[in-house]
């Protein structure tokens, strides 16, 4: 595919620059408002207290010594965290933020000591933030990806049928469904699901946190665990599919309706090409590219819709991690989550742009 390479390279570069800019802006906000200073001070206190405890256990230490140690060590750590320089002068935030930017770009986040946050994995506190996020992220991606695939499959099944019967009851019902379902927030739909299916009918567990252990021990007993996982994952995926289907159906239908009226569709029929082939090669194939761009870019965005929903379901993914971090005031995890989320999003967009270039040849010559 000639020409595709340079387009891909350019897009990739733009996305990389965007990422760096965002990290810088976020770091600036976080440092400028003193938000991160709180993080550092808290961490310093934590470290010093831990060391003091170890000292006390060691044996005969006088209180005076402890006080002195605390003072010196705090000062030392403050220098290390770049809150002050060696002479005790405060380092202004706009200089401090650059090291934060540097560390963030390398995904070097420290530890968290909040139990609620660690419980999402689940693991014990204090735990390494980066590995918590790494453990938790795939669970979100799992639900979103499986959900989108199912939604796309259903939409592809129903879409052409409905578009061909333009104006029929099925068609109007589809439009009504799409309009209504996109007005409803997915996370509220989740609440209703929980009430109906978990509380009233008792089909599914009320708190989906349990799936974490099943996932972690999946390979011990794959068949049983798979069924167990189904019990947990059905609700979030179903809610997501029902919701996502709305925009897929509407977008696909609108695009199909436009394409069906195109001259080349009629010309293909004139050439004696059978209906099924026309639908596949002339209608779907052509519609897919623009529909895929607009709605599949929403796949990266669906992570957003899923975040709040996850926290409602207590599904142990990014959403629940966010909720725990907010509840416990864990600023470091929040910062790390922001960086990771943005990074993942940009990577997803990049992949999808490559996909788009493969699918629609018109884009290659830009």
């Amino acid at each position, binding site marked *: 595919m000639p020409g595709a390479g340079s387009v891909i390279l350019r897009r990739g570069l733009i996305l990389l620059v965007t990422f760096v800019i965002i990290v810088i802006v976020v770091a600036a906000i976080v440092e400028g408002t003193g938000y991160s200073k709180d993080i550092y001070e808290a961490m310093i206190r934590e470290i010093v207290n831990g060391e003091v405890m170890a000292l006390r256990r060691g044996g005969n230490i006088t209180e005076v010594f402890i006080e002195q140690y605390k003072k010196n060590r705090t000062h030392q750590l403050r220098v290390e965290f770049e809150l002050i320089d060696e002479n005790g002068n405060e380092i202004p935030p706009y200089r401090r933020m650059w090291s934060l930017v540097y560390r963030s770009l390398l995904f070097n986040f420290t530890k968290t000591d909040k139990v609620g946050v660690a419980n999402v994995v689940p693991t014990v506190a204090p735990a390494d933030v980066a590995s918590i996020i790494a453990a938790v992220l795939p669970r979100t991606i799992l639900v979103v990806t499986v959900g989108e695939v199912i939604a796309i499959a259903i939409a592809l099944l129903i879409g052409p049928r409905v578009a061909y019967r333009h104006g029929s009851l099925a068609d109007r019902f589809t439009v009504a469904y799409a309009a209504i379902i*996109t007005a*409803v*927030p997915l996370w509220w739909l989740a609440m*209703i699901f929980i009430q109906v299916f978990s509380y009233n009918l008792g089909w599914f567990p009320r708190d989906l946190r349990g799936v974490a252990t099943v996932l972690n021990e999946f390979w011990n007993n794959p068949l049983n665990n798979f069924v167990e996982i189904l019990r947990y994952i059905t609700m979030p995926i179903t809610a997501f599919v029902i919701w996502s289907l709305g925009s897929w159906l509407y977008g696909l239908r609108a695009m199909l*309706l436009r394409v069906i009226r195109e001259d080349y569709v009629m010309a293909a029929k004139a050439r004696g090409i059978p209906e099924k082939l026309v639908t596949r090669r002339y209608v779907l194939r052509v519609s897919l590219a623009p529909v895929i761009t607009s709605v599949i870019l929403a796949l990266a965005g669906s992570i957003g819709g899923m975040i*709040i929903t996850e926290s409602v379901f207590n599904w142990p993914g990014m959403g629940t991690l966010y909720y725990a971090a*907010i509840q416990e005031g864990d600023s470091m995890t929040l910062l790390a989550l*922001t960086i990771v*989320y943005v990074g993942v999003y940009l990577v997803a967009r990049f992949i999808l742009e490559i996909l788009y270039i493969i699918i629609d040849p018109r884009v290659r010559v830009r």
Partner: protein
Amino acid sequence: MAASIRRSRISRISESFKIAISEIWRQTPGKAALVLFILLVAMAVIAVVTITPDFLVKWESASYWEDNPVVVPPCWVNSLGYKTAKTAQIYFTTPSSMEVSESETRYIYTYNYTLDVNEAPKDLYVKAEVPLLCEEGVFKAPTMRVTVERPDGIVVLAWDMVIEPGKTGENVTLTCGSLLSAKTSKETFRLAEVTSAIMDKYNITVPPEIAGANETYVITANSIVRTTIRTELENKYLTILSVFVKPISYKISLNRNTTILEVFSKQINNLKTTFLDLGINIVLRDKIIEALDKAANNITWVINNINTVTYTDYLIAMNNAYENLNNVNKLALAASAPVDVRSSVDDLTKTLGKFIEVATTTPSLIQPEIVFDVLQGDYRVNVTITYYGVKKPPRALSAKIGIIVKGGCYGILGTADKGVDIATVVLYGTPIALAIGFATAVASVFIGVIAGIISGYYGGFIDEAIQRTVDVLGNIPLLPILIIVGSVAQRTFTGEAKSLYIILTYIGILIIFGWGGTAITVRAMTLSIKEEPYIEAAKALGASNTRIIFKHILPQVLIYAAAVLVFNVPGAIITEAGLSVLGLRHGWPTWGSVLSSARAENRFDVWWWILPPGLMLSLTSLTFVLLGLAIERIVEPRLRTL
């Protein structure tokens, strides 16, 4: 001339506005949208007009809603067959009646309450604010008495308390007429009297064949019954609700289990054996054996008569046994029996003593089983405020008395945790939601239109710059930025306007990320309009750029912008709600805050808590989407078939 042009321009605009509305009305979705829109605006107006200024601050404190029952459904569920007790919150400012006598003046406040369901209310209390009267330099503080006349005739004296200043721990200088406040509580409730009244009325006493003849023991037995009733009322009916219950059945029986008696018996026999083998003074030993025998007989007698023995006789026998064992103790000491033997005797004695104590204070020997149920009927609550020694009592007492009965339902939409009235918050959330939505939409579209026109019309460097900026902004996911900035905002802002600043921050971020889409489309529109021949003609005629923009480009763009604006309104509202649910609360009473407290309390089982706010969100969103679609169809008739 200019005035008539201006007038005609205004009339033209209003004309086209009217046409637009009628066009929208013609389509069914448009009709629905307009109706919903008017409803929303009406709700918002009502809310703004009726809101009290401190609601925004106070609504999150539990004390604001303390008179409401907690997490109860709306009262109309009663008509659907789900019966609950009514909630009554009655405030009196004038007494129902007044009685004056030589030494005291009584102000009486009466409220009739009907309980017609088989479920007791959840709470009952009285709040009073009474003035401190004074006469000849002496302060007169009143007492408050609360009685409840029950449908079964019992008049319960629920509370009788003195209303004293300084109860709230303040050091306030008292003046004549200053208000003292009091509130009844579980702790001051006269449960003992209620218990007695119930026992008297329903004749709950230990039957003589169980109790026996001895007056003391009869009294003891009855007091055990009383204690049992008290415990039941405290535990199952939260003390205060005992006002609303009556016993429907009771059974008082004697514990006819002989196991422990047989153990005693055996132990006494063991002692006997031990003593028999002991080498002690024979005389004493014989006396010991005799005492042991007597004790054994006491117990055996009870065992043999276990099916007919009365409480009195049982205890008399056990007491005798105890006395006898005590004797054995003394004798054993006198006989210098070995320490271990003596301690055995001592232990047994103590155990027996314990047994007797338990039998006379707890429902172990006497076993009362009393089943209570709700007493349905008409109740009358009387609150009497009495002042002593006031010679010239005021006719109209400037007191406020509140009688609160917390039932099982409340209001139009029920309550959430802390008794928050969901209907109130839903109503007051409407103008806030609309304000957030419109502010964001108007600002985004405004900036977008300006940027788009400038970009499309002037081109060049600024066009490139705007396009690049929009491109970069479009690549950034909104949610994580909102979360981190929201989190920072929560920590940074303090003080009174904290909530407002947090919301403004959200709106700001949404605007920053929102103007781009509009700008790009407007730019495309501007570009294509720019190529039109009439633009060229206008330029040739000497029209300035500003004139061309305002007269030719802007009107066409504005129609599109109207549709985009309407589409954009719900986005901000739902985003704010979502952030609240995620835990980033800002403190204002929005629909999202109700859902966020549902999530925080994990009460997804409460349908009246999660349905109304969510429905409001969905309906608002739907309204604007339909409205936007309707406007779009007018602009682009081709889309009518879609």
